């Protein structure tokens, strides 16, 4: 717990300054979780605002301060679902936003070393997002919470209010699907998938970039 129970109780009873302190304590962590759940930095703040807005108007329904964190994560998961479902309904905007995002990243980094590192990170993000895109929104959120955020099955059981065994089965199936997608990416020669997660990824990335550049120039010609 990042804050004590007494502060949550005060926020629950309508103390706005206590609520302010609770948000300030949790916002960075929640924004990080949202960033990894939705994979689009430009929308993280909006989803975060929605989470805390929902928290404010539902805090009186919280039974005890002890279950505050699972409650907050449930709100986060629900807001992320809603966002991902909305995005699914308009895939064309997503494509345009991705290029915008890349431009934003390219503009942000100045030095070549920093740029290389940022490029590598962007590739990792894109690969992870592409793999997560192969499963349903529910499985995607579940996988990120378990595998990336490192939440335990017990914590996930509290967040989802379901049996841990049911979660285990669902996670196993989702992971299998992602593994298959990773194999397919590797077979297709995706540089991030073949290099993926290796310490010497940068040299392979350079080679891959050269290949991509060659392919694109070949394609254009």
């Amino acid at each position: 717990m990042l804050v004590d129970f007494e502060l949550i109780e005060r926020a629950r009873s309508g103390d706005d300054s206590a609520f302010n302190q609770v948000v300030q304590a949790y916002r960075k962590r929640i924004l990080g979780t949202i960033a990894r759940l939705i994979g689009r930095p430009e929308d993280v703040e909006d989803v975060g605002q929605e989470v805390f807005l929902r928290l404010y108007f539902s805090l009186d329904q919280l039974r005890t301060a002890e279950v505050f964190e699972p409650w907050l994560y449930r709100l986060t998961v629900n807001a992320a679902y809603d966002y991902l479902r909305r995005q699914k309904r308009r895939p064309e905007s997503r494509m345009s936003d991705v290029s915008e995002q890349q431009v934003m990243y390219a503009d942000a980094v100045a030095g070549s070393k920093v740029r290389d590192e940022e490029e590598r990170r962007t590739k990792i993000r894109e690969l992870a997002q592409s793999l997560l895109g192969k499963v349903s929104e529910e499985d995607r959120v579940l996988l990120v919470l378990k595998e990336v955020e490192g939440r335990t099955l017990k914590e996930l059981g509290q967040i989802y209010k379901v049996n841990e065994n049911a979660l285990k089965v669902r996670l196993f199936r989702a992971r299998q699907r992602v593994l298959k997608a990773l194999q397919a990416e590797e077979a297709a020669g995706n540089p991030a998938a073949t290099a993926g997660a290796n310490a010497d990824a940068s040299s392979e990335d350079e080679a891959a970039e050269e290949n991509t550049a060659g392919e694109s120039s070949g394609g254009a010609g």
Partner: protein
Amino acid sequence: MDRMDDKLDALWVEYRQACPDPDPAPDFMPRLWRQIEKRRNGNARVFRRLAQVCVMATVALTLLMGAVLIPRIQAEAFFAGTYAEELAAEHINADYTDFLTAGDQR
């Protein structure tokens, strides 16, 4: 498959590092409070509107009862005559009954 499992685990770790917790924008809290106020006012407006509708419906119902239902109920009154007339009418019936029963005795 173990190799792929390891690769996927490593990818998740790298993804975690590639997506660090972002710093909230400086206007995060003011923006949040603006939205809270907006929704609060929105809720108050809904309740106010609901109350207005209820008051208007009550007034309309009262007027309807006053203008239509009450005159109709009054028109359908069972005792239209005065008290004396009703009493006289009852006596006439009683005399007639007495007359009939007296005839039988004779």
